[in-house]
């Protein structure tokens, strides 16, 4: 159960959704070999379970760096859209990256934040977003004007389609339940990195 929220975060009345369901909807919209960078933990597990696209990168450590990694891919390949998937705990660890994204205004970057208000994988301790921090308000204040809470599944589909079509940078925050991730990623960082680079057309395939 996700606890009812108090404070600033309660200003939005977004529906509590499910990360795996939404990950599947997100991946279903990808038609142009968009890159997806998944943050550590359940974010990645659900991305993995949604189907292992060659353009997916699964972070195995470096908590908080999904958005910076995605920004780097976006800078290197400006004609490809890049999506970062990150959890609330991970984003809170590296909030400064939103200021960098706001400053650079890289338009082929979309960030999706799954916010369950807990550090789920370590024992469901509360994050600051459970009671006080509003991640969309923080993103807007960092200069990312296209930042919004998804009200429900249909709203998420619409926001994500618009982010892909119109460009950004955009941030979509989603309130999610406390269901654990569905799958588990492979644990070979070189294989994951090499497959991703091939998926992005960077490596010649022998």
């Amino acid at each position, binding site marked *: 159960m996700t606890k009812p929220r108090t404070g600033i975060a309660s200003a939005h009345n977004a529906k509590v959704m499910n990360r795996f369901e939404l990950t599947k909807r997100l991946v279903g919209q990808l038609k142009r070999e968009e890159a997806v960078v998944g943050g550590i933990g359940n974010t990645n597990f659900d991305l993995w379970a949604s189907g292992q696209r060659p353009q997916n990168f699964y972070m195995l450590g470096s908590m908080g760096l999904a958005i910076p990694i995605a920004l780097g891919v976006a800078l*290197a390949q400006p004609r490809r859209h890049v999506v970062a998937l990150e959890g609330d705990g991970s984003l809170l660890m*590296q909030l400064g990256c939103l200021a960098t994204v706001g400053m650079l205004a890289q338009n082929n970057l979309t960030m999706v934040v799954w916010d369950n208000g807990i550090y789920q994988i370590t024992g469901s301790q509360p994050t600051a977003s459970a009671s006080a921090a509003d991640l969309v308000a923080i993103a807007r204040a960092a200069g990312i004007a296209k930042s919004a809470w998804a009200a429900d599944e249909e709203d998420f589909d619409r926001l994500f389609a618009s982010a892909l079509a119109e460009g950004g940078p955009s941030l979509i925050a989603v309130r999610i339940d406390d269901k654990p991730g569905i799958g588990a990623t492979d644990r070979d960082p070189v294989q994951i990195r090499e497959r991703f680079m091939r998926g992005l057309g960077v490596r010649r395939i022998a």
Partner: protein
Amino acid sequence: MNKASAQPANWYEIVLASLKHNDVKLVAYVPDRVLTPLIKAIHEDSFFITFPTTREEEAVGIVTGAWMGGMRGAVLMQTSGFATLPNALASLAVPSQIPLLMFVSERGTLGEFNLGQALVCRTMRPALDSLAIVHHTITRIDELEFIVDRSIKQAVATQAPVAFILSPLLTGGKVFEQGGAR
């Protein structure tokens, strides 16, 4: 730079030329007083994509993503910034085999006034050694181009990070004011 051509006068011109010569387009940095002329010169050269990040590990993430997308990148920082990096190095750049180029302006030595800088400097080489990251402390301008150029090529060829520690002997270091302000 070609050996036959006239040597650039300044260390930062040599670093810039080596980056360019090796197609290192992306330079993310957390600034340092000593690095100021290098950062300024990179900003003024349209070859580069350059910007500050809020933390050094953020820059490591960006350069890692850029490499995977086909663009070479470097991170500029000072000694205390390097000290924030071991997790990003040990869990991303090293195991993923990323040719991450790190330029570290060395504080904490040769007349440091700030005890914290002096202590943090002592953690840098043991941290690099413990991760088996190649590092060079550069003290002489006549060796700079050789070390940087060759090591960038080695980093790319061996898919491994490298750290260039820019000694005050090379850069002049930070000018310490009487009484040790800042």
